């Protein structure tokens, strides 16, 4: 337990010291939140209804998909995990602790959004706080799993960016953050169910914000939880201590199985 506490404490401080993590955990989500809060609410007043969940999901994507995988790849490539292995640091700690500390940073950012969204920009506050907490936990778990999985399967930092952007960019465009899912063409809306962001926005809408039009929001929560679990299990299975390790050749295609819960969700929700 002492070892876990030391590890957690170090990883949390590391997130504050590392400029890239600071950018992805705090500066980017809060900067975009401030910008959209000032501009989008003027351009599109409907955005005020969803600014809190949309910016929460954006913060989630930024920290978990763009911020979390990079340090994992960098540490593996620098031989940090080799040192960890020799000194008895378990693989589960390497995978779980950075996800937990990133989640803690995310809680702080989400708290800022929750507090200031209604006050500064006239945004709609959650009507069911328990529901907000539940969806937040499920979405964080799902995105953390994907972030950790991207870190595990990426051969280098360039690959990390590529994999992360494959989820991040579509999420921004069709994930319901900027444009409500109801305004998307039917085919695009159907494909958008493959994204955790869409599932999270649907669940927030139905379980936390009291906005009508959500499609089976509890199912979205279930998909997020199963998706997160699948991603974490795959990450643990594919985890490599060392990029030069010869013990087990990487089978990166297996990582595509992480999409399976979302594919099933697409058929159930569409």
């Amino acid at each position: 337990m002492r070892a876990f506490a030391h590890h957690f404490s170090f990883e949390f401080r590391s997130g504050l010291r590392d400029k890239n993590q600071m950018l992805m955990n705090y500066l980017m989500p809060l900067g975009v939140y401030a910008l959209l809060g000032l501009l989008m609410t003027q351009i599109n007043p409907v955005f005020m209804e969803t600014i809190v969940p949309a910016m929460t999901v954006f913060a989630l994507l930024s920290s978990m998909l763009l911020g979390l995988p990079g340090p994992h790849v960098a540490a593996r490539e620098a031989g940090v995990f080799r040192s960890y292995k020799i000194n008895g640091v378990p693989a589960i700690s390497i995978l779980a602790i950075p996800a937990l500390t990133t989640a803690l940073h995310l809680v702080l950012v989400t708290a800022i959004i929750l507090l200031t969204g209604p006050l500064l920009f006239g945004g709609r506050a959650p009507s069911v706080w328990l529901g907000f907490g539940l969806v937040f936990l499920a979405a964080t778990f799902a995105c953390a799993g994907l972030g950790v999985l991207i870190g595990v399967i990426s051969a280098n930092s360039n690959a990390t960016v590529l994999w992360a952007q494959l989820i991040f960019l579509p999420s921004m465009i069709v994930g319901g953050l900027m444009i409500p899912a109801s305004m998307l063409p039917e085919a695009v809306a159907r494909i958008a169910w493959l994204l955790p962001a869409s599932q999270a926005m649907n669940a927030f809408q139905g379980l936390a914000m009291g906005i009508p039009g959500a499609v089976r929001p509890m199912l979205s929560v279930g998909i997020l939880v199963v998706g997160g679990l699948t991603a974490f299990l795959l990450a643990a299975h594919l985890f490599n201590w060392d990029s030069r390790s010869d013990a087990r050749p990487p089978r990166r295609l297996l990582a595509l199985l992480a999409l399976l819960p979302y594919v099933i969700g697409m058929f159930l929700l569409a």
Partner: protein
Amino acid sequence: MQILHFEAVGQGVEPPQTFAVRLASVDRRVIAGTLSGTLGWRPKNNLGAGGNLVTESVIEVKDFRKTYGDFVAVNGISFAVEKGEIFGLLGPNGAGKTTTLESLEGLRVPDRGEMRILGIDPTHQIRKLHHLIGVQLQTSGLPASMTVQEAMAFFCSYHGLAPQYELLDRLGLGERQRTQYGELSTGQQRRLALALAMAHKPPVVILDEPTAGLDVASRVELHAIMRELQKSGVTLILATHDMAEAEKLADRVAILLRGRIVAAGSPRDLTATGAGMTKISVRTEGSSLQAGGVSFPAVTQQTTKDEYAVYYSTDPGASVSAVLHHIEDQHDHLIDLRVERPSLEERFLEITDGGSR
């Protein structure tokens, strides 16, 4: 005048012979040191001096082979390291030293052969070894933002120990405790890795190029620490291509070349064999060695320089024995005797054909 008794057990002196060497000058300690230190002759009344009786194998490697694709990194090597020994793996880059050590540390999986550390198989039982081995890897790192102090606390916590900050002082990192790993110099990073390897006081320490990048003072300090560890019963295995370091520190060495052990033994044994000439310079009170027609076994060349008779020998033990017998027979007195062996580096170059083999 002082008479010292020696038992000659070196090369070419079989069975062991006993000598009573008459020492005439104030240099007697130098001469005694030459006979015992360079040739391996033991002062007869102090046979156990400096010797540790070691019989227990702590590290065992049998027929270890490791390939990377078509490249054979290590090709069926075997060796054992005994308790309290400092064992050196020597060889040029790519010889297989690091592969061998990393397999012992459980980081690589052997293609063939057996490895044991304290009876534990590192490939399949690495968890049992965590607290028993301390490792300084050649290519390893810590998170760039981790401070020296945090690193000590972090790794000690995984060993269930309180942080051993005094080790940081010992290794000259006391004033850098709040410095992040990424801001340390290469030498400081290596010293930190060493401190972490030793923090949990493991009975076996594995060091890969431990002094690479260290300044002279740090290197001397590290050597002293390694000696201290050895005295406390710790077994050390180190890979290095610094021959002088190996010659100075290691009780035994194995020279690896292209994945095979091409020579093994104590540095003294290794330098005592081979075709390298040993220079023997002798000065006596009288002129017993200046007389014409005096020849000694294994001496291929002889000359005089200043007041010294100088012999080049392929078997210094036999030559020195004969010279000392001659001096004794002639009732002459020895003033100075110097034996200069080929260094381990010269021997290594000979074994490896100047490194081209």
